[in-house]
């Protein structure tokens, strides 16, 4: 028997959470240190997993399978391939950085904070490595609870409203998914995600397949979130504590997108392609998310809310890439070209999941950093900060440019791949979606760069808006938090293969299997 590396990754945070419970409340520093140390275990193991999967990304690695509830056919099944390995790494990286950053910023109820955050980390890992529906579902929902409490306890002014909205929206989606899971089980006789997908449940019965498809769709689209299910997101992201927003935008949104790639696309290729090509509901929603999300960003005056809406827009690229991959299945034409483009679109979508996690995670950290000083996020209160906080300005520029897709930074490649794939398969949606890129550049340059950093610094305005807050540049811990993210943005920007090799292997295998 091999070393159960995935179980260790998933459950180390749980062990850490239990240990945190045992440390006396007064001993806050010990709790912080312990959590950070514990979070390094999955981080290091995630690198090992990543390197191993690199060799053969199209297959499942480190598979573990034990009985869990034998009477119900429920197994404890885990495995990673080229799609999930980058996600595991992303989760581990953002969690460790969040723990580190929180150690300096969270002063209230430290014990509960780290306990919940560790549980959340376990839930996220669990979703990415599960290969059994019930197991998957358990982690999916377990992650919901700590995030709900994190928003509700440590959040901003409207935290209670945002927390309950987040919980109810996601719960509504997940229970719909649960029914779909049960439906698939009674059709295929297995809860194994891979076996059920291979069996193509309800293949001959379009109405039932569509019903199950929409069940999953609801669960995942609310999480992504795709227009019109996105309204929980601006509230939750804006009100959550800084690291809560980082994890929400960086990882939790990806759970939905991951569900589409891992479950919906392989399991319901016919239905998905029907709604992606013949009745193109899903690409329509995707481009609405892209364009509408970006336009709403331009109208925001709250910096955090702006970045929250930018997630709606950026996750739309993921949905667009997915739709293109699905649409390629029913299109007539050169099969070679279609497959290449479909793989390209799917690579773009899954790369966007990774890069958006890194970039938006970084942006939310940066918002948190300025909020710590100014205690306001009102764009009108800022202006001319470039001269006052040059270091912060530099980091924000890099991250912002990565977000708008500047070549040489990570965001460029995912958008390029998505549009390259989509143009070949469903060109009309690519044309509309590209407008989003322009708007993105507009709100990043105009709203963030210009309003916050450029111009003359007006001390009187600043004092009035922030009640004489002291404006200092980034501290050492803030730099330590941001540098790994900036490094990844530049690394992936110059050498995208480091991620794309994995994604490409897995996505090619996936699409060839359909």
């Amino acid at each position, binding site marked *: 028997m091999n070393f159960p590396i995935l179980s260790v990754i998933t459950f180390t945070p749980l062990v850490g959470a239990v240990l945190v419970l045992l440390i006396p409340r007064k001993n806050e520093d010990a709790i912080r240190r312990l959590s950070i140390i514990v979070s390094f275990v999955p981080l290091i193991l995630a690198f090992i997993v990543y390197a191993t999967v690199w060799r053969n990304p199209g297959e499942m690695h480190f598979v573990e399978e034990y009985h869990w509830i034998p009477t119900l056919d429920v197994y404890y099944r885990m495995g990673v391939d080229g799609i999930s390995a980058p996600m595991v790494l992303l989760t581990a990286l953002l969690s460790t950085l969040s723990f580190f950053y929180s150690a300096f910023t969270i002063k209230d109820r430290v014990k509960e904070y780290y306990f919940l955050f560790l549980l959340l980390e376990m839930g996220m890992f669990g979703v990415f490595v599960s290969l059994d529906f019930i197991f998957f579902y358990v982690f999916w929902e377990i992650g919901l609870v700590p995030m709900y409490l994190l928003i509700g306890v440590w959040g901003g002014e409207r935290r209670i409203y945002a927390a309950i909205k987040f919980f109810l929206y996601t719960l509504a989606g997940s*229970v719909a998914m649960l029914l779909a899971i049960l439906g698939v089980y009674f059709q295929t006789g297995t809860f194994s995600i891979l076996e059920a997908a291979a069996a193509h449940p309800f293949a001959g019965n379009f109405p039932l397949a569509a019903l199950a498809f929409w069940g999953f769709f609801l669960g995942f689209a609310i999480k992504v979130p795709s227009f019109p299910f996105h309204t929980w997101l601006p509230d939750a992201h804006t009100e959550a504590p800084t690291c809560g927003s980082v994890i929400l935008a960086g990882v939790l949104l990806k759970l939905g997108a991951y569900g589409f790639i891992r479950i919906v696309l392989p399991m319901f290729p016919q239905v998905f392609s029907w709604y992606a090509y013949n009745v193109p509901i899903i690409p329509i929603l995707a481009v609405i998310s892209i364009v509408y999300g970006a336009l709403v960003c331009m109208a925001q005056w709250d910096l955090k809310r702006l970045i929250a809406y930018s997630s709606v827009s950026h996750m739309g690229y993921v949905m667009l890439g997915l739709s293109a991959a699905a649409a390629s299945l029913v299109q007539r034409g050169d099969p070679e070209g279609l497959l290449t483009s479909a793989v390209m679109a799917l690579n773009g979508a899954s790369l966007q999941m990774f890069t958006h996690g890194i970039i938006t995670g970084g942006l939310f950290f940066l918002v948190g950093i300025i909020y710590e000083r100014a205690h306001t996020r009102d764009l009108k209160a800022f202006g001319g900060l470039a001269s006052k906080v040059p270091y912060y300005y530099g980091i924000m520029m890099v991250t912002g440019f990565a977000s708008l897709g500047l070549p040489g930074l990570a965001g460029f490649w995912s958008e390029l791949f998505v549009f390259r794939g989509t143009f070949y398969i469903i060109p009309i949606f690519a044309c509309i979606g590209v407008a989003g890129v322009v708007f993105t550049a507009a709100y990043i340059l105009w709203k963030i760069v210009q309003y916050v950093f450029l111009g003359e610094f007006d001390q009187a305005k600043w004092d009035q808006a922030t009640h004489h807050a002291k404006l200092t540049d980034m501290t050492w811990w803030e730099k330590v938090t941001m540098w790994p993210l900036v490094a990844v943005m530049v690394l992936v920007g110059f050498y995208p293969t480091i991620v794309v090799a994995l994604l490409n292997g897995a996505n090619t295998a996936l699409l060839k299997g359909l």
Partner: protein
Amino acid sequence: MLLPQLLLVLGAFVVFGADLIWRDRNWLPYLALLGLAVALGATLYLLLGVDLPGEPILGGMLAVDSFALFFQIVAVLTGGLVILSAVDYMQERTPYRAEFYSLLLIACLAITLVAAGTDLVMIYIAIELLSITSYILTGYLREDRKSTEAAIKYFLYGAMASAAMLYGMSLLYGVTGATSLGAIAASLGAADASLRWLVFPALVFVLAGFGFKIAAVPFHQWSPDAYEGAPTPITAFLSVGSKAAGFAVLVRVLITALPDFRLDWVAVLSAISMATMTVGNLVALTQRNIKRMLAYSSIAHAGYILIGLVCWDLGRSAGRFTGINGVLIYLLAYLFTNLGAFVVVIAFEQATGSNRIEDYAGLARSSPALAGAMLVFLFSLTGIPGTGGFIGKLFVFGAAIQVQFYALAIVGIINSVIAAFYYLNVVRYMFFETGPGEAPALNPSPALKVTLAVTTVMTLVVGLYVQPFIELVQGAARLLSG
């Protein structure tokens, strides 16, 4: 074969007797617990160590089958946890405690008899025994006007319901000439049946009586008032024990006596199930008293459990999500969860004298352990994975999908989302709101702490390691479907 029941009677009398000769009454609850523990031992011995008789005993009155034994376990566990949670509560409120504990033991006895009854006469008597002890226990705090009011309402509704049930039973007897469930089924199955049309009204009347016990809409009106007024440990008992008894008899009567009328009762019960879930949850949304909120929530849960019964899978039991398993596992998970929630309510009431949800503000800060346990119970009631409540919902929704009753499943999940709102409302007060000033830490008594620990751990165990419990309920359900 009747050893557990005899032990319960004995326990009740010993508690009475000890009250007369013993000055120190603080030991009475533990004596009653001892009685329950011995009864539990006897039940487990019957379940594991003895070949059970295939036929009902005592002239066809009582079945000693694994189904009955399952409910004996449920009854004894409920009784034990309720007694533990009542120790301090009753000590402060009434000097007459011996009668309280003996009556509780007799109520547990009544549950075991209800679950075992295989004859309409026996069932009626057992239900009456349970009802009458419940009325007394509800009104036990004579000085408390709410308690008295609750008992009166409970009694009036109960009397009506039991009259209707008796009428229905007499109709069944008139049609079939038999009172034993097996004989009724045989007689109804026989070809000649000019009076068969009477079975449907009989069914409706009988369901009124059973529906009263499980607090299903429209027979639920008694429960919010009774739950709010009753001493809180008794509220816990009514919401779990009494409901379990109702489901036991419902399942046994419908499946062993009226399988041929399955279409009739499935139609009636699915309507009742949807109405119960929806009404219970919608009204619970507006409650500000936590006991009333839990009362309506308990109505709603009866609706979910009914899904399992409605989706009882005739013939196609090859599937693994058979509805009856769902009913039983749901009841088991609900037992620990709901009792646990009430234990928190008791601890809070003991310390602050309040049952208002607003007053829970800041509980997470002052008593994190108590708030944490409540969190587990509330999420279990919501049906979040990792807790017993999820397993229960998984089973009943699974059963509904299996027999393709999609409408029931969809109404069920919509209701789960509605329900999340009011459960989370309590979480919101405990964790997100801060109370007025620094709330003092609550310090529950040792007995409450034990109860709390047991219920929390069991709620999580049923959620995470459910296999042994599934095997237990499969054994219990096999007999009925086979």
